[in-house]
């Protein structure tokens, strides 16, 4: 079977996918246990786990472009946020006339801004299928246009990193503007339901958790498939010796563009799953810091392994949750220290370290 062929010889991926499958079976069982049971998983923990899974998917997307293609994107959170906004727009339309102002045609913030009709780009978002299409199309299109310009003119390395950062920064500034029509500073929030299911109910939360897990699994397999394919070989060749690959006759920019766009779409899907679970999307998601944090998850987990990215995303975010609850002051120290220590002492991340320990 194709899946087995993809995973052949990659112990890390096998272990990860096994663990993911087990989690997707065990967690629903634990969540449906009666509330007073010792092993009961609360709705809060469930949402938290779901959130981590969407982060993991984002990290996988970043690992694909950074680890295999060699492009350090400091703007992937922008694709994540755009997917999130597309989902947020659908959820806003689902509120209908249950908003504070009770306007059936306009979201609350538009009524507040004295707008009288829905801006053109909000049309269609009351349809789930359209919103899902946009979740993939908007980040994908942005990545395509951006990459088409950047790769064609051979902007590489640090320059590319910096302009991806400028991209997300510009988007953040733009989304902060009320005139943009995305809720300005406050973003989109106060969601009620998705596809008719209330977002407050534990069953919906469980559904979103499973959806996130499945998306992560499928996204992971897709990336793994790309990496194992002949396309993946070319991609790695581009990372290691771009000029040689070009001289061998490959259209390097086409490969880069394809992978970059695919990765942006994955990030957009992650964002779309993230928003209903946390219940809000606002422009701070575009912060350059967020994109860099994702890169750190990947760096800590281990580049060019995919499962390392998942490991890093889960580990760092668990640490973040723990620190912000127990020692909020120390979180940035810990995160900053991790950046420095990992780059100095674990250049291949935790995954690389485990690999070395295993093969010794």
């Amino acid at each position, binding site marked *: 079977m194709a899946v087995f062929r993809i995973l052949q010889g990659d112990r890390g991926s096998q272990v990860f996918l096994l663990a993911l499958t087990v989690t997707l079976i065990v967690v629903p069982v634990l969540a449906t246990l009666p509330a007073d049971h010792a092993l009961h998983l609360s709705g809060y923990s469930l949402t938290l786990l779901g959130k981590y899974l969407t982060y993991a998917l984002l990290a996988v997307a970043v690992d694909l472009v950074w680890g295999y293609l060699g492009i*350090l994107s400091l703007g992937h959170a922008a694709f994540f946020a755009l997917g999130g906004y597309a989902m947020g727009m659908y959820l806003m339309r689902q509120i209908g006339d249950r908003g504070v102002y009770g306007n059936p045609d306009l979201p609350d913030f538009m009524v507040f801004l004295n707008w009288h009709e829905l801006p053109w780009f909000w049309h269609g978002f009351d349809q789930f299928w359209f919103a899902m299409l946009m979740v993939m199309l908007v980040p994908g299109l942005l990545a395509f246009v*951006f990459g088409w*310009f*950047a790769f*064609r*003119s*051979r*902007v*590489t*390395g*640090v*320059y590319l*990193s*910096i*302009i991806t*950062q*400028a*991209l997300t*920064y*510009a988007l953040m*500034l*733009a989304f*902060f*503007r009320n005139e943009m029509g995305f809720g300005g500073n406050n973003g989109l929030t106060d969601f009620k339901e998705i596809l008719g299911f209330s977002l407050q109910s534990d069953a919906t939360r469980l559904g979103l958790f499973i959806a996130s897990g499945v998306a992560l699994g499928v996204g992971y397999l897709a990336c793994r498939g790309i990496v194992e394919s002949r396309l993946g070989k070319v991609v790695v060749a581009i990372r290691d010796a771009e000029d040689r690959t070009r001289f061998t006759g490959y259209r390097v920019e086409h490969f880069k563009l394809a992978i970059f766009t695919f990765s942006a779409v994955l990030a957009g899907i992650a964002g779309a799953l993230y928003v209903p679970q946390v219940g809000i999307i606002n422009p701070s998601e575009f912060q*350059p*810091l967020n994109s*860099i944090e994702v*890169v*750190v998850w990947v*760096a800590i987990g281990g580049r060019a392994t995919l499962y390392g990215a998942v490991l890093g995303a889960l580990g760092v975010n668990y640490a973040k949750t723990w620190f912000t609850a127990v020692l909020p*002051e120390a979180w*940035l*120290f810990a*995160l*900053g*220290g*991790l*950046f*420095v220590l*990992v*780059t*100095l002492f674990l*250049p291949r991340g935790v995954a690389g370290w485990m690999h070395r320990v295993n093969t010794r």
Partner: protein
Amino acid sequence: MTLRILLLLCLLTPSAYAGRVDTGDPRLDAIFRILTGNHFADKAEALAKLAASPHPKRYELLEGVLSGRLRVLKKSGRLVWATKKGHKYLATDVLSGEPLGEFKRRKLKKIAINNRLRRVIRGILATRDLDSGDPARRLKSVQALLANPSPAQATLLAPRLEKETDPAVREAMQLVLALGRLASDAPRVRLQAIAMVGDSLQPVARQALVRLAASDPDPRVKQAAQDALGKIEDRVKLFAQIETLFFGLSLGSVLVLAAIGLAITFGVMGVINMAHGELIMLGAYTTYLIQRLLPETTGLALLLAIPAAFMVSGVVGIAIERGVIRFLYGRPLETLLATFGISLILQQTARTLISPQNVPVANPGFMSGSWQVNPVLSLTYNRMYIILFCLLVFAGLFLVLKRTRLGLQVRAVSQNRAMARAMGVHSARVDALTFGLGSGIAGIAGVALSQLTNVGPNLGQAYIVDSFMVVVFGGVGNLWGTLIGGLGLGVANKFLEPWAGAVMAKILILVFVILFIQKRPRGLFPQKGRAAEG
């Protein structure tokens, strides 16, 4: 009780004071008799007479009336300066300067004036310098006339205009006269006056012309006024552009200051220092701490902060280079991550050690105020200092790189490390010093920024993206590129602002730079030669 009421009555009744004034000068006596009386309508005329009299102390007397220090001794009728001393007043004869001893308040007659009279006196006092030897004072007093236009001004100014030699004062006088004539009944005089007003930028001139252009009965006058207004509008627009240019240059200077340290570490060394913003922040905090140590002398504290911030940021920079970056040479993306970690640590340090909130940094006196070039253009001193400071720092850095031994070694290492080492350059030491230099400059930028924006833990983050944009736009490894790039982006930003709004202007600039990099991936001034490859 009855006694009190009687006393009150005495005070209120006009006849309470006999009006005796005896200065030895009958004209002065007559004037002050009116002034000490209760007929306010006559007082204005008396004041004008006083101003017109040849008496040498007339302006002092007027000032005395305005401030209330000038009193009349009821008993002898002499004019005295009254100085409060305890419950009593010390009286000194105004004309002779002879001390007359202490008096109770009711022995001294105060000269009552109202707000209208105060305006009259101020108007008169404003013109006192019309005959001053100093052209600047003459100009000031003519300009004071401009603020309170009155028909009497023509008689005051016309003879003086003939004698006036200073062109600026002449121009102002002509404007005042012309403004008076704009109100004339004869259309010919009004036409001439319009020609005289010309393209003056004074708001009063514009207001007068607007009135004429809208409602003058004579069509020729109306047309002339409209033409003159058009010319004035053009000039106002021109000066508005100059002001925008000035704002743009000052914003650009801030960008250059923030970016120039980065131009060294990123441009010359190829190290991406994401902690650069936090090194700027350290400089700003150093300014704050030095001001805390020297709370009385903000100016001195600011000057001391420049070398201190250079040292603090420089030392931290060297520590970063020795501790982390030197292990990561040749791996730019890893350097980026590690220095980003350092930036988080530095930010949190500032939050923990000093305060998570912004801290106040005072501006010294010489930074406030502005230079009024003309009525529509004023340039604030703090912006001028920033531009000047930016140019100084740039020149200093340029000299260090081009004229010193360290500069030579830095350039050698950045062009060809292996070759430089073969020639005996201690490259590790040069790396550390270069990084220290770039970081120190960031600290100096922090001192400048502390005078312009809020000083807080997030100061650095606000500038990091902008700084990178400037360096990349200008061309890596090229100081001139950073200067031109920074100033250019600043000016472009300010010119876009009125048209697109502040945030949109910034977004447009970012998009522009992103597109520009596509077109010229090596920036405005690309580095030439083999060093550029790679």
